[in-house]
């Protein structure tokens, strides 16, 4: 049976929290990658936006994004280059109802190719209150042309709290 959709690696944050969730030594043997995140941060915010870097490339100009979002009853759109990584998704902060965690999916087609990487990522912070819920649908670009071999997710301030998880899947079309 072809192993089309395979768990490559996972992160589960233990007690005390963690500054990062990282994937290293990602093999180039798949066609696409998918990262699935359930997370919460101890930063005193409602919606925190993590940074995600590939291949330890922290040059902000190499990342860009454009998103459509909804926060409570307001919809909008924004864009930018990634001074903190070009991936805009919401993670529940410490100001939200306890035990609420965000849901995030990041899809990376042809991650091992030699062109810039266009990425689709969606994330929501359902905060269980009337005014601070957030949903963001994002088109991102990392201009790197090397195969993606590492992915590191962190916050400018704050930690991932216990029970936060990140799963990396490889999807193969052969």
């Amino acid at each position: 049976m072809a192993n089309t959709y395979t768990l490559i690696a996972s992160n589960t944050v233990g007690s005390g929290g963690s500054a990062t969730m990282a994937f290293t030594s990602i093999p180039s043997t798949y066609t696409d990658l998918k990262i699935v995140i359930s997370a919460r941060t101890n930063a005193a915010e409602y919606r925190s936006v993590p940074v995600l870097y590939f291949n330890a490339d922290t040059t902000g100009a190499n990342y860009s994004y454009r998103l459509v979002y909804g926060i409570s009853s307001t919809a909008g759109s924004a864009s930018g280059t990634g001074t903190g990584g070009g991936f805009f998704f919401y993670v529940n902060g410490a100001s939200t109802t306890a035990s609420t965690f965000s849901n995030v999916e990041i899809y990376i087609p042809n991650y091992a190719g030699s062109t810039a990487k266009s990425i689709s990522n969606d994330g929501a912070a359902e905060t269980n209150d009337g005014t601070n819920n957030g949903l963001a649908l994002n088109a991102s670009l990392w201009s790197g042309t090397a195969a993606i071999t590492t992915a590191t997710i962190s916050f400018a301030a704050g930690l991932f709290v216990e029970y936060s998880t990140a799963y990396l899947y490889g999807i193969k079309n052969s």
Partner: protein
Amino acid sequence: MAAGSTYTKIATTTVSGSSTNSITFSSISNGYTDLVLICSVQNSAAGSALGMQVGNGSVDTASNYSVTELYGDGSSASSYRLSNITYTLNTVNIAIPTTSAFMPFIINCQNYSNTTTYKTFLTRSGAAGQGVEAIVNLWRSTSAINVITLLLTGAQYFNAGSTFTLYGIAAA
């Protein structure tokens, strides 16, 4: 389909040359529950959207499709609607890039082989330099889907290296 295979590649195509403006997946088995199409696309020139026609035996080219789109261009959010069109639209406001990065499309079709409901498709697409889209398309037919054609809506061609992969997801 192999037993126990929940997410299975059905078919894949990588474009070579410069004369391809449509990709067809035919004889799609009804042995799955849902379908997922992953496309990574470049266009030979500006002017086309990525459309899709579906059918049973052959694709439906009549005006039986409609689309509703949520769009953000980086400064404002908007919504758009077209009905009675001859193909689905998987990008409405974003031009498929012609150089550099390829544009990703993730297209989901749930319960594609039932013969009692119209078929709905959910698409996520976007280009960081232009905008982001969340799209729902409807095909007004109760026929099971066993053929899908992805097409450029204008007189352009897919650039070499564009990829199209159809996956089946089995609930059991």
